[in-house]
């Protein structure tokens, strides 16, 4: 069946479709990409079906460049290893990460702050609500060249904060232990500095980081205004550099998501 050309309009896509497409567009062809469970899997698979056919997906459990014919539901899912180049384990992929071979990584979190620090451990700090903890989140955010955070924001203003209540994963400005002085990431990481947070993609807009490592609004999703995005952050978001509206999913992208990548409707309910 022939798929319509061009970009879809409001009402023709769900928020999650736009999230997946915006995330997928961060991948450049040939890049080595670390992905986690859920939306990141949709994003990398969509990128491989569109502008980045030779990009490679690594899952932290150890599978490299799998070609799943069914959507995995966890990074250790047997589906991840289908037609993979290599399926060993954690030491193999984490040493590639630490040695700077990972170009892009998708991450999520309960909180993100102005400098791209991520919290997946405690909402409200060690006396607050306990979450899963880091897993590979801190390793990947510490050592990948670029990370892309995928976050819910609508009615979740508390997730976009001036400073996260617990730094699970280090962003562009971080404390230097033990003296606690806040310094740019590069000063702490030295020769192991490969990069840092490149974008935050929410259900309201796409955010990037400036020369000083501070978050700013790059594009806002259709149906929202830059002010909506700013008002849904707990800090004073810079909206002065906004480029315009986020490009909507193409009909081809929507077709790939629904009929090829997630036909079972596991992530895209």
């Amino acid at each position, binding site marked *: 069946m022939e798929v319509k050309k061009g970009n879809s309009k409001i009402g023709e896509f769900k928020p999650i479709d736009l999230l997946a497409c915006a995330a997928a567009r961060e991948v450049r062809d040939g890049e080595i990409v670390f992905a986690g469970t859920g939306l990141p899997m949709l994003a990398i698979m969509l990128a491989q079906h569109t502008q980045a056919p030779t990009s490679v997906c690594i899952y932290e459990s150890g599978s490299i460049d799998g070609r799943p014919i069914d959507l995995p539901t966890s990074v250790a899912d047997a589906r991840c290893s289908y037609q993979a180049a290599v399926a060993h384990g954690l030491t193999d992929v984490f040493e590639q990460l630490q040695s700077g071979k990972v170009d892009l990584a998708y991450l999520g979190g309960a909180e993100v702050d102005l400098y791209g620090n991520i919290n997946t451990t405690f909402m409200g700090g060690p006396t607050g609500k306990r979450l899963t*903890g880091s897993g590979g989140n*801190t*390793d990947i955010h510490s050592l990948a060249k670029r990370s892309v955070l995928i976050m819910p924001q609508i009615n979740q203003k508390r997730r976009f904060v001036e400073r996260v209540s617990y730094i699970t994963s280090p962003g562009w400005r971080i404390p230097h232990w*033990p003296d606690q002085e806040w310094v740019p990431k590069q000063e702490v990481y030295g020769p192991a500095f490969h990069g840092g947070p490149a974008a935050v993609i929410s259900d309201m807009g796409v955010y990037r980081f400036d020369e000083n490592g501070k978050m700013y609004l790059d594009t806002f999703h259709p149906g929202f205004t830059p002010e909506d995005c700013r008002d849904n952050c707990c800090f004073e978001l810079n909206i002065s550099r906004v480029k315009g509206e986020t490009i909507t999913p193409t009909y081809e992208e929507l077709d790939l998501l629904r009929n090829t990548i997630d036909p079972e409707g596991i992530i895209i309910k």
Partner: protein
Amino acid sequence: MARPKIVSLSEAIGQIQNGDMLTFGGFTVWRRPMAAIYELIRQKKRNLHLVEVNGGTHDDMLVGAGCVEIWESSWSGHELYGKFGGNLARKIEKNEILYEDWAHIHVLNRLTAGAKGLPFLPTYSAMGSDILNPENDNLGKAGLRDGSNPHIGKYKYVIYKEPFTHSEIVLVPAAKPDWCITHVQMAGKEGTVRVEGLKFSDQEVIKASKHNIIIAEQVVPEEYLRREPTQNMLPGYLVDYIVELPWGAHPTGLFGAYEPDGPFINNFFNATRTQEGFDQWAEEWIFGVKDFQEYLSKLGITRLEALRANPSLGYSSTLKRG
């Protein structure tokens, strides 16, 4: 070093003492030694010290059952089947458990150092995170880094200004658990171990441990495994006990054999929102059955068969997931 003993599950688990340090093979909700977890709980082990690359359904059960005094890992949850470790979260929030948070690479390095006979290994991971915030050195704050416990490092970590490039790097201390329990697809009669699919960090955590219990989905002729030595993970002399137990990883998944039982795990997660909820769940699924065989009978063949993997894929092609 004698050959491993092939024993019953209760006999193998009976060797583990209260207060021992434990780790496990597998990854989150995949290839976890669940039958052994149930038996540890049935035998009412106490004051266990867990050190794991990551946790999952298995460690949250031990925590809920009151078996664990110290939890050290990077993560606890149930993947898409449960947002976090319910028992662990509750006990942390109520200060009912000692815990130490780590990055994945930190725990991997700690156990790899143990496997290599080294006192530490270095990494750049998680510098600038609150995982390394001295305020969050919980075992230190509890006064447990005084050297009296051989399983607790004198320091959580040391930042070392290395002499070769003058960078600052994190040194984490070796971990050498008393026991590692690992579920695998195959073990030979002399103890040669084969894992199919991803190895995760099994080689590292098994070699780091003083004693090893291997739960094998199937025990096979040693000669069969030795036809392809490059595909085997471990020689028998690293194994103390072998237990043959089909479906022994349920409700977690086993590559090439069966899927995780998502609804079962999700039901467990929902029960763990309260201690009472967990206790009822444990009464039904752990204390309410005599042993793992009775557990399997209670689950029933229909439920188990629905999880069976398609050999051409390594996973089920029929399981309803959407």
